[in-house]
């Protein structure tokens, strides 16, 4: 490889626009940069929205929560502490607080709406079984108590690590692990077909008998 080629590659690499980190964007937001706010919103809104949707099961609530989270960010972007977790965790933490308050107020446990139905009508037949599965899982997740539901949403549906989830939930990693374990066991029980429910319970019982 010639020296000139290596040099040109290096220059090209340097000329590439460096993507700002979430923390950089937050700093810009504090100073009133509208573009930075828009950029961070586009980058992180789907995480917040999905979390709110999985937790509430209602699109309206999810949109409201997303709106509220970014309104809080607008006013209190300076409150973010890098030592305590990522910006994503910070946003999801705000979303969680707002959501729990709202769920407590309204006792929302609505069946999930058609928000996740992204398939076209002609594909619906093929997707029927898949959609049934999705619906039943969503229903089962929504039926979990809030503190179990949130770990399932964060660790399974948002695919976050235990550490990240712990930062969002402001608890120990061990707590996340144990809650997830318990939540998964509950989900398995709820997703078992009625006929084989007793069998499933037997299995769980035997698993606890230290055989």
């Amino acid at each position, binding site marked *: 490889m010639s020296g000139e080629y290596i040099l040109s590659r290096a220059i090209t690499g340097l000329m590439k626009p460096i993507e700002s980190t979430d923390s950089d964007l937050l700093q810009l937001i504090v100073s*009133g940069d*509208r573009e930075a*706010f*828009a950029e961070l*919103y*586009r980058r992180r*809104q*789907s995480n*917040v*929205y*999905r979390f709110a*949707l*999985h937790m509430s099961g209602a699109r309206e609530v*999810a*949109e409201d929560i*997303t*709106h509220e989270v*970014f*309104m809080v960010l*607008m*006013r209190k972007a300076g409150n973010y502490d890098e030592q305590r977790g990522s910006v994503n965790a910070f946003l999801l933490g705000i979303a969680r607080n707002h959501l729990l308050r709202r769920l407590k107020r309204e006792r929302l446990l609505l069946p999930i709406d058609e*928000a*996740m139905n*992204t398939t076209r009508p002609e594909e619906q037949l093929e997707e029927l079984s*898949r959609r049934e*599965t*999705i619906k039943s*899982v*969503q229903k089962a*997740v929504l039926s979990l108590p809030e503190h179990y539901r949130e770990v*399932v949403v964060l660790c*399974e*549906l*948002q*695919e976050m690590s235990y550490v990240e989830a712990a930062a969002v939930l402001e608890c120990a990693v061990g707590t996340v*692990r144990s809650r*997830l*374990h318990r939540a*998964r066991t509950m*989900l*398995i029980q709820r*997703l078992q077909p009625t006929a084989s429910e007793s069998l*499933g319970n037997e*299995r*769980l019982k*035997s*698993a*606890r*008998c*230290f*055989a």
Partner: protein
Amino acid sequence: MNCQRFEGLVNDVAREQIMDAALQHEALSHTRKCAACAARLNDERALTHQLRVVASTAKSISASEKVEARLLAAFAAQSLVRAQPIRLASETRYWLAAIAAVLLMVCGLFVTRFWHVRPSQSARIVNVGETPATVTQERSEAVGPRSPSEEKIQNRLASADITRSIRHRKERELLSAASFRSPKLLNTEITTDFFPVTYDGAANLDAGGQIVRVELPRTTMANFGLPVNMERADEKIKADVLLGVDGLAHAIRFVGNRTSLDSPK
């Protein structure tokens, strides 16, 4: 590995989490020996699969564009609000300074006027019997026509003046009465009662007038029925003459020195 240990690892194995390879191998080996744990692992894997399907379906969804539009509008509005307080603060400071200046001017005028009024008032009090009301009247005439509210204030001031004048008079009377008893005053002057010099009746300080200190021949005391020491007949004696508002002498009292005399003889 026993089932209890496997139960603690089953989530990580089913979720294909990064873990110690030896531990994972041990867990999988246990499922080959234990049917219950194998079934448990299957259930867990099935659940993981189902959850991943849900997660992948939900990956593409996001908030509607309306939310973004609303937020960006709110951000722009907030930036405006953030900029405004500086202007408002400077405006508020300007108005506060203006109000403070006006208040200072009003206070200054009040104080100046108060100090101008006081000396004439004290000068008037010297004239015994002159009612403060007349003083107030004169003062009000000097100032010119007033509004009803100003008149109210002036009436209040006048009544305060009257009270002050009466208090001063009482103090003076008490002082003169005490002058006979006070050891300090015994060393200075003693006086007789006022003797009327006209047939109008007893002299009355309240009717107004002035007291004028004069010196008379000691023999004058005999005209009022007072005993005279003939050895000192050629000496003078002090007397206070009460002049009425008509300018005539209405009464007289004799003033003696306590150190030299037991009585003003």
